[in-house]
């Protein structure tokens, strides 16, 4: 399976762009494995389907890179750096640091995109994960089954940030899965009517992420 076996300039039919130049590139040829591109296609379709009609259609998705020549998942053609999602009337910009933007609606939109990514990719490294990801979201499909893993900082900071943005949990986003985080997560699952077995049942975790994204995209708490 070659790291560059697929070359494409759209995902799920949505054009890719590159914004990290003085003049943004309106065409971007990403390369990855075929399996990884299929997951990107599904993610893109989720972004279009989950958004309310008022957002308008998805216009483009900006990336900072898919396959690049470095060790691990980017070098294997199994990673994608997400800079921005642009619907006709709304945007979510990890590039701008939307995870800590001053408007809650913007932070909720970031949570929604983050959640939808997690339905397809086990490793989503977001703005809360570490300083290297404050300006983009890294997606890769290493890490095993698509379930919640309390031992992964990448999962726990997302749950903590989601609880803060969606139910005002007031948690410290430190990646430690302690009693407060556990309680806040349970509250979110209850309010979304999801059974608590999201660490074992991928179907349940994906349902949780979908319902969370639907609420967040509509700027509604839980």
């Amino acid at each position, binding site marked *: 399976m070659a790291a560059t076996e697929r*070359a494409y300039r759209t995902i799920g039919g949505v054009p890719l762009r590159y914004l990290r130049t*003085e003049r943004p590139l309106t065409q971007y040829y990403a390369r990855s494995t075929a399996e990884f591109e299929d997951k990107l296609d599904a993610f893109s379709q989720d972004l279009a389907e989950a958004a309310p009609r008022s957002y308008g259609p998805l216009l483009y998705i900006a990336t900072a890179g898919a396959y690049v020549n470095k060790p691990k*998942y980017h070098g294997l053609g199994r990673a994608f750096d997400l800079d921005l999602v642009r619907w006709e009337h709304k945007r979510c910009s990890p590039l701008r640091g939307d995870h800590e933007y001053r408007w809650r609606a913007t932070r909720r939109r970031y949570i929604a995109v983050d959640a939808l990514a997690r339905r397809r990719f086990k490793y989503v490294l977001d703005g809360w994960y570490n300083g*290297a*990801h404050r300006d983009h979201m890294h997606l*890769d499909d290493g890490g095993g089954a698509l379930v919640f893993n309390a031992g992964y900082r990448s999962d726990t900071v997302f749950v903590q940030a989601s609880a803060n943005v969606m139910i005002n949990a007031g948690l410290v986003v430190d990646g430690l899965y302690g009693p407060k985080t556990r309680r806040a997560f349970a509250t979110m699952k209850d309010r979304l009517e999801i059974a608590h077995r999201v660490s074992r049942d991928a179907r349940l975790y994906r349902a949780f992420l979908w319902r969370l994204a639907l609420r967040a995209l509509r700027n509604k708490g839980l």
Partner: protein
Amino acid sequence: MNDSGDRLRAGRRTLCGAACALVLLGCGPASGQTTQDVIALPTPRVQAASSPSAGAADLRSPDGGVLHSVAAADGRIVGVGATAGGAAAWSVGSDGAWTQHRLAAAADVPQLDAVALAGPSVVAFGGDGQRPSRMWVADGGTTWQAVDADVVGIDGRVNAVTAVSGDRWIAVGDRVDPEGGESYQGAIWISEDGRSFTPVTSDLALAEGTLSDVATTGDTVVVVGFDINGGKVWSADDMSAFSAATGPFEAATVEGVAATNDGFVAVGRGIADLRPLAWTSEDGRRWQRADVEAGDVRPEDQIRDVSTVDGVVIAVGGSLDSSVLWTLEDGLRWRRRS
């Protein structure tokens, strides 16, 4: 470059010699747009002759092996990489063929990534890409010995290493996220004995970035790499302070650098189309884009190492399980070899 203020502190140094021939070039498939106009520059001159010496011109990949790095000095050539059985090391014998060496304590190591040579001493790094690199050394013997990690002191993944004036060494690479395994920070380590390394700095201000290669000539050391914002190049005199170089590195990965008779050449790819790119510099501080000819570099080819052998610049790379070796001929183009 948006971090011209970065300065990396380092120890002393000198320089390596081996001038090189060079050239650069590249090739590229693709249409795709570039972010700036390509500037056609005078081609760097090949050092002695305008064609590769017999040694470099005859180099091929070892049978059954994938080269990840090659080093040459004083008429010797060594290479490291992988075979189906794991990490591997070779040297070129008097018959011009690769001879594989035994690697001590390497049973669980999938590959070696970097090698440097100075006099009788060889230093090599490798590992599993997740944990800090391990080191092997050879001082003329046929078996390369592993060095205890506590002695080595490398706390990241080494992508390239080079000798400086025969008695100092500089290694470059990155530090690895313990959860996902991605590099998140570039790193430089230096050594005066080829055994024990110390980090130059704890923070190279790379965002999800890596340092891919290092080259030296005269009093100048050049370190290249890239991160989420594009290519990054630093230079230092006397290895005492690295500062960001200036050049059109945006929307690019810088994946290799070599010394030339006229300074340095760096090679990389366009981020949006994988088109091969090249930059040249006389002093390592100010860089220009060089015209790249279409040629024998395919989109799927990784460039793992660029180095100088007998005055000729060669590159090694390929896909995950195939080895490609290019030589630069007539200062104009990469020529693909087995």
